[in-house]
């Protein structure tokens, strides 16, 4: 899978690249509109991460060009949190998703995964790991073909962990994925712990795939 990161902050782009390359993603970086335009013309990417604030101007111009050229690259817009009008505009212009800064890398990879799944696995809405199968269209989960009734929170939790499989996902990232910005106002992570515990119990024999990494978070493996 090829991903283009259009971001003017080198160190930011570098971190994203490093994080994503652990999966079988191949990441390339463009730091401004002109080089990005060149790269988009020359190659096809599965997903483009596009920062709105670029030195040469608004990143959304690139999105417009992409749509005019009828390119099918998936696009995730990245913007400052208080620029939420950008969100409406981005989605209107045909972006696949929108992510407000600051975000967690785990969240970003989950979004990328979702975009790629939607775009390139048409009709294939199922995600599986060993005996666990998640149907993202029906929002249902089954273990060894046995349907498992999960609450909305548990479903989101499982999906988030599974997409980030093989990585340590911090409790912070999970909390923010589930609670949004209000996660910062949690007194403690007991609620995350409680939901993970319930989820593991419901997954029965497969509950062991969610490993607790003490002090930091959880890992799906």
């Amino acid at each position: 899978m090829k991903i283009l990161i259009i971001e003017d902050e080198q160190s930011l782009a570098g971190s994203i690249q490093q994080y994503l390359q652990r999966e079988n993603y191949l990441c390339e970086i463009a730091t401004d509109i002109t080089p990005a335009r060149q790269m988009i013309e020359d190659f096809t990417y599965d997903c483009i991460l596009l920062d709105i604030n670029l030195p040469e101007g608004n990143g959304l111009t690139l999105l417009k060009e992409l749509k005019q050229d009828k390119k099918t690259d998936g696009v995730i817009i990245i913007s400052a949190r208080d620029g939420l009008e950008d969100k409406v505009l981005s989605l209107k212009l045909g972006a696949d998703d929108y992510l407000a800064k600051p975000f967690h890398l785990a969240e970003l990879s989950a979004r990328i995964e979702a975009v790629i799944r939607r775009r390139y696995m048409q009709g294939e809405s199922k995600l599986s790991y060993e005996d666990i199968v998640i149907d993202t269209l029906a929002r249902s989960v089954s273990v060894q073909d046995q349907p498992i009734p999960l609450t909305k929170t548990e479903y989101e939790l499982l999906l988030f962990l599974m997409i980030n499989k093989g990585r340590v996902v911090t409790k912070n990232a999970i909390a923010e994925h589930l609670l949004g910005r209000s996660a910062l106002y949690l007194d403690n992570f007991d609620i995350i712990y409680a939901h993970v515990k319930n989820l593991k119990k419901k997954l029965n024999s497969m509950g062991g795939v969610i490993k607790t990494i003490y002090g930091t978070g959880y890992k799906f493996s």
Partner: protein
Amino acid sequence: MKLLHYTSLRHLLFASLLTLISIPVFYVLLNDIFVRSIDRDLKMQAAQIPTMVSIIQTPQDLSLWKELDNDLEVLPLDSVQFHEQPFTRQEPLPNHKGMEDFRILQKKLQIMGRPYVVSIRASLFEKEDLIRTILTIQLGILILLLIGTVGINYFVHKRVWKPFYESLDYLRQFNIESDPSPLPTPLKIQEFTQLNHSIEQLSVRVRQTYFSQKEFIENASHELQTPLTVLKFKLELLLQTQDLTSEQGELIGDMYREIEQMQELNSNLLLLSKIENGQFISEEDIDVQGAIMELIDTLSLLAEAKDQQLEFKERTASRNKPLLLKKGNPMLFKIMVANLLTNAIQYSASGATIRLDLTDDSLSIINPGAPLTIPKAKLFTRFVQPGKKIKDKTKSSIHGGGNGLGLSIAGRIANYHKNLGMTLDYYYDQVKEENAFIIRWHKEN
């Protein structure tokens, strides 16, 4: 009390007092002058007495003299008390119509070889009359003068203080955000020119400070954004390292959390600046119910973490018609309600029920608990924590969020929707022991 009334009243009081004192003083003086002149007359008359006496040879002459002059009294020396100086005495009038004041001068004389006291008198009746008339005229003049001076004073002051009031108006309407309107140029009074000059200089300085401070906050927050994000990303990468001990993991987790708090503070400061700079547009309709439902959905887990319930009481009437606020900013509205709701969750005890009451023209966010500890006036200022957060003491606690900007942002957002008549107020219900934040807006017809 207004300045003009104050000075006029003082002036009136002083003038009245002066008038009141001047009347008796004037009376005493006038009286004295009058008596003196009568005394002089009496003395002149008395000076002629010896020549008269020299004519008197017989007792008949004496009685004739006494009869001729009504105001004359001749008595033997031993039968009367002698006064060297003229004096005043009340004596009956000849027609018995009561008593009257007379001025009397006595003189010792030898008549036909025997000592006599001759008293001559003059009536003070006319004097009383005259003094009364003079005093009446004087009083009239004084009153006229009083009214005149107070009146003149009033109008002069009104004119003189006009530039002062204009300066006062200028200060009252002073808005640090908007461009200054020019100060009116005062009369040729030096003090007012100086005052206006000082005000102008002060407002320029205040504005400069304000804007540079604002700019600083904006720039600082903006510049901090990227390094903080980089730091966070690096920590997230560090966590992926295979051979991390749980202790190390915990330390990284703590750091991670602190960075998130800093980022939140940072983006809140930026948001506040952007609202204050008017960088948001209010062009969309706010679907109030929709916004609330969305927020309840996202915040339900936060409430669940404290075993709290969120109870949304929708409008009873016109339920099928969505409540739309025309020309607002839905994102800002959501941030406002989210901040208030997050506060309500944080500041009420575990297991509490937090209510959202929606009417056609207001939304109340009500939570049980002790009243906020800070005065109302300071509630919506930056970095003010409205009270003690109630945490579950039985559980371990991480550094919980909240940077004292939530209410400030909410207040600014209410202000921002002035076109909708939006206000944000705080009330405490003593009976039910409930805190309530109420967002009000103008009802559409």
